[in-house]
């Protein structure tokens, strides 16, 4: 893999040197559970990353109440595609239903 912008593979991993834009700490702004489960690897609160912004998800589903909590929790665990383009969300079977519901409730709380 050719690495751009001062990136260098070290011992099978990629390290980063000065030059890239410096930003937030991983997990910052997320609920503790969302941070622990590394949701920010693919999502951010307001910006489009690999997956939709959390606030966009909240806007779409927040009026559905508890049903939305359950549906989002299942989506977090099972993954799947269709609502936000063709890139599927990976399944996260190791996330417990309890954690998934907690993350879903936090996402829905972001609705304006």
């Amino acid at each position, binding site marked *: 893999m050719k690495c751009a912008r001062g990136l*260098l593979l*070290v011992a099978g991993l*990629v*390290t980063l040197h000065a030059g890239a834009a410096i930003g937030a700490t991983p997990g910052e702004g997320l609920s503790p559970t969302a941070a622990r489960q590394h949701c920010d690897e*693919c999502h951010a609160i307001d*910006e489009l990353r*690999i997956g939709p912004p959390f606030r966009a998800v909240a806007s779409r589903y927040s009026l559905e109440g508890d049903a939305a909590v359950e549906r989002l929790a299942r989506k977090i665990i099972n993954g799947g595609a269709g609502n936000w383009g063709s*890139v599927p969300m990976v399944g996260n079977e190791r996330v417990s239903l309890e954690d998934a519901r907690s993350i879903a409730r936090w996402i829905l709380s972001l609705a304006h």
Partner: protein
Amino acid sequence: MGKHLALLLALIFPAVLPAATHGKVVDLNGVPVSEAMVILTKSPDVPGPTATTVFTDAQGAFAFGADAPRGTLHVRRLGYRPVAGDVPAGDPTAGDPAAGGPAGGQPPLTLLVRPEADQSGVAPASAYLKDMTNESSRERLIMACVACHQLPAPEVRDYARLLDDTPQTQTPATREAAWSAIVKQMNYVSNVEFGRAGHKVPSGENVYSGGDPAPTAALLVEGLQGPLREVRNYSYGAPLLVTPRTRIREYEVPAPNAIREAVPYEGTAFLYAADVSSNRLIRIDTASGAIKDFPVPGTDLWGPHTLVPGRDGIWASPFFPGAVMRFDPHAGQWKLWRLVQDTAGPPLGIHDMSFDADHDLATDKRGRIWFSDIVGNAIGWFDPRSGKSGHFRIPPVAGREGNEQVYGLSMSPDRRHVWYCQLGIASFGSFNVETLAFETHVEFPSPDAGPRRLSISDDGILYIALYGAGQLAAYDTRAGRMIGVYDLPDRASAPYATTWDPVRRVVWIATSNADAIYRFDPRTSGFAVLPLPRERGFLRMLHVDRRSGALVTSYGNIVEHVRGPRMALLIDPGDDPT
């Protein structure tokens, strides 16, 4: 003696348990199954290795030693599945009629298996790449992905199944877009992990700035076709080297940790494992499994990364910043040397330190330790007596400039040269530590061959593991000629390191993607396979304990995000080493 007291004593002193767990592995027709792994996972409340594995003989028989702890048995063999679940083993009352147990030790166990063409769950990740016919693509895919984790790991296979099941991802273009997303995620994870070395992580539009994901995504589309639910017709590719005396002992280290490599020191009563994520060396008592931590001094260090046993302790290097450390196992203390660095330049990335044919730390005749600097693409030296250090940049290789990644390093038997390889550009060479000049330089034809870690035999033969190509290169450093480049039994095995075995006069090859160790015999140019009892057995370094002939290695699933076992391994191949 009352029953309860006997039971209590048996729990406290499991070594006095009479008669070992033994039995047979047969199929449903009663036919013995040979070369099956029987894995004894100990109960959490008793001391000992986390798991001990033995292999069945031609009659399907297996036996554990008298010191085998109480636990459960599981059978694992390519092409078979256990008929029932795990079987309890090691009844503590067995052999003690006074305690109400059966006389004459434990009765033999019969473990049933049935043949099954689907090898998923038993075959290694590399099995899923066996039908990848384009050699160059396979090499590039392994170099890109197996650099950090097995491919296809179970999560990757799950994602392939998701793509196969999802109506929106049925075209090549949507598949590629979906794999691109995963590559971006991996690049981000890498950035976060190495952000802990003192650099911050990019955000916003740069969050996935690990490089263009498209080339790797295209390789994933090419290499991972179908739902990957099953894998069939995988074979190890060479005879197994196991015997009924083979013992694989695995020692789990409590989370969180990221064991990178493990070494023996003066015999195998203790193993020492480098935990690269929590900055400590972990000592494992091989009899009891008891663990003791030895934190690395210095809050700014990230490591330890590489371990090399020496006559005066275990030498270690952290990733960053440039430092060399020595651990005294007797005193339980560290000594640390900070290396002087160019203030304007990047931090030193000390990767490997010079070792000899016994895999012990080797200095040159002036007492200098030599190392590879993966960040500066340089060969460096360090004098522990004066604390002085320096480095020599490796000349650029025409047509392969950039991303050199100088990696493995070893010292020649005459201590006049260090030999190094460059993982990123598929080259290796020598540096004369007396004249301070670069001498030999050799390139492999494929730029993705991936020479990773190397070792030199006492007669000057350099053995190089070719990670991408799945080959072993043997180069005669005295005659200056390539003896041969040998295909490994599994070309997708991602060989991480070679280790010259001065006891047996063979080469051991630790693989990252095949859950196996290979043995190469230079006398016959033949390979043999030692399969490991666990999925995601991502190996890195392997050491041979000179006293016992035992092999010591570890599942080096480093960084939190990479799932898989974090264990040190102590292996008796079950041969007659001399």
